[in-house]
């Protein structure tokens, strides 16, 4: 199937001007499938970790948002055990791959336990934030630094 011009243009721009701390590479055999890695933002519990994600552009992208999921285990109130992400802005057509990845990076820097996807994590975050952050750091060390 022919690749829409928008996907080609977005990929070209992503390659030409990559976002600092984010790396997204399309698969050779399927240009709709991207291997993504995001560096944990500084001053966050995820600092120093490199998180792998998969991103897939559905057939009717950009009408439907990209499907994106964390492959690396992460302790975060807005990301569940399967790596699914709760984003406020789930892809109107004007939102690009770039902006989605940026908002995920921002989400790592600013966890939002009031809009949780992983309830247990969010609860812990609210009850005992230092302890939750400690766990997040430990998870980052064990899962995202190898």
């Amino acid at each position: 199937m022919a690749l829409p011009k928008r996907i080609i243009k977005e990929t070209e721009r992503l390659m030409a001007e990559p976002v600092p701390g984010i790396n997204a590479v399309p698969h050779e055999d399927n240009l709709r499938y991207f291997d993504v890695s995001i560096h944990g933002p500084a001053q966050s519990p995820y600092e120093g970790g490199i998180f792998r994600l998969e991103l897939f552009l559905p057939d009717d992208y950009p009408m439907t948002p990209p499907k994106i999921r964390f492959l690396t285990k992460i302790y975060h109130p807005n990301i569940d055990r399967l790596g699914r992400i709760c984003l406020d802005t789930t892809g109107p057509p004007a939102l690009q791959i770039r902006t989605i990845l940026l908002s995920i990076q921002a989400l790592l820097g600013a966890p939002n336990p009031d809009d949780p996807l992983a309830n247990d994590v969010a609860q812990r975050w609210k009850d005992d934030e230092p302890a939750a952050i400690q766990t997040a750091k430990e998870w980052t060390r064990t899962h995202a630094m190898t």
Partner: protein
Amino acid sequence: MENVDAPSSPTPQAVEANPDLTSAASSDVSSSDEYLPGTLDAPHLIVRLIQCQRCSRPLHTPLRLPCGNAICRSCLPTVRPRTGITYPVAEGREEGFTCYWTGASNCVGEHCVGDCGVDVVLCNVLGLFQEELAFPMPDAGASENPDDSGRIVRWKVDEKGTNSLEDQSAHLSQRGWLWGLYLLAWEGRLPYNATEVVYEPERERAGEQMHQQDDQIRFERLRDRLRAEVDCQVCYSLILDPLTTPCGHTFCRKCVARVLDHTDLCPVCRRKVGIPAAVQAEPLNSTISQIIDHFFADQVASRREADVEDEAGGDHEKDLPLFVCTLSFPTMPTFLHIFEPRYRLMIRRVVESGNGKFGMVMYNRRGREQSDGLGSSTFMQYGTVLMVERYELLPDGRSLVIASGISRFKVIEAGELDGYHVAKTERVDDISLAEEERLEAMETSASPIPDPTDPITPEPPLDSMSTQELLDLSRDFIRNQRQSGAPWLHPRVMLAYGPVPTDAARFPWWFASILPIAEEEKYPILSAVSVRERLKLCARNQDEQANTPSTQLSETYIPQKLVIGTFFAIFLAQVGINFLQTVRGGRRRRQAMELQFPHPLPQLNRRRN
């Protein structure tokens, strides 16, 4: 907004009749009659692109009007409260005004303030015009050079609306055409409707050359910078048929239609778009259209070509879009309710492209292996080409379609386009009549003639029956079923599919369309290429149907009856509403309806109106 060429319609002879002007510098004099888009031939037309039609100054905080025109916010007519309107409740809907363009194309006269968002793309474009054409601004206090050393521009204008043209002129001092004219417009001295514009170049050759260079540089810089502003935020290509939402964002018309298949929110600001799903009827943004056509005419042309190519999937062989849904038969109607975004897109393309044809194939529920390397595709290999007979777009973007079967096909190769299947197909036709006759003669003579007195085989084997007898057998079956009040032969069903056909070739299509058995059982009828074979399959299916326990039977026929019933109810309601609105709404409604029915259905239009 009127066509940019329109004001120049007065006689070009007027220019020639003036010997002073023509002799002054015949090659450099240009009137708007010889206007070439994308060039510097008529600089005032470039400036006119962004002039407000009311105040003649460059548009300032332009508002997008629902009729496609743009106007400065300060030029908005007097706003008055709208009374007697309570729905929809939204900010800005309680005030309205009478449009300047009332009666002109597409304008219904009244606009509501809430529909007139600030035109975002146009704002950015105006910023670029300002940056490229107005710089440097003249000193406020400095007096204009009164001598005639600089370029002069002369024009005629009908200022009082009395059809009498008045001569006007201005010295551009030491400025190029674009720069000078933009500043004239900025000062409000260049009327929007100036006609017969004549340019008198500077006498001094060196100065003139400098101005020409200045014009060229400004023009090219402006064009290059504009290009980035006129990309659609949905498809990332040059905006084709710019449509501006009430919130002021501009996209390709087709992109808006595709967005509306999925959501009713603006792709940029997430506000409700408030445009009916029949996007085809919405007026384009005329200012942005003209700007794009002026600067990027060549790109528009190639974009339009690419668009046609994209919709065909770039692969001319796989030219038939497939609707994977049900089993349809030639000459028989199929009733469809289109709600999935991908099929909304497909049907829209089918209707708009003008041929109205698509392929109907049924699901491959049992995952059967298909021939020709299709493998266990999601659909069965044989299908029917359907022609859209009626297309009713519901207000929320869903649609009701009545299509009739044209011919059969076999899928040779399949691909995907924007979520739906497209296929390279091969037409499937019946064997020739000679072959048909030969088959009948061979089969009837080969089989043993049954002894009618033999009580063990009261019914002859199908192979030995003549084709006519096979037809009569099935017709008798229908007659018996009808007499016993079979619900699947309800008059309403007969109304939809027509009376029992007498033509043996057509009968099986009719029979298979209404017989309440599983589609998988009927599928062989579609792929059979001889009339005789089809009739035999019908006869076998009768046994199938007769042997089905009645409870199961009622389960199968109810949905069919229900579907047809519901369909007709919705359809009649829709037609009724439309009729009422036509009667009430008069001209405006009629216009909208014509646009709802694109050209494959003109006769239906007429009947309605």
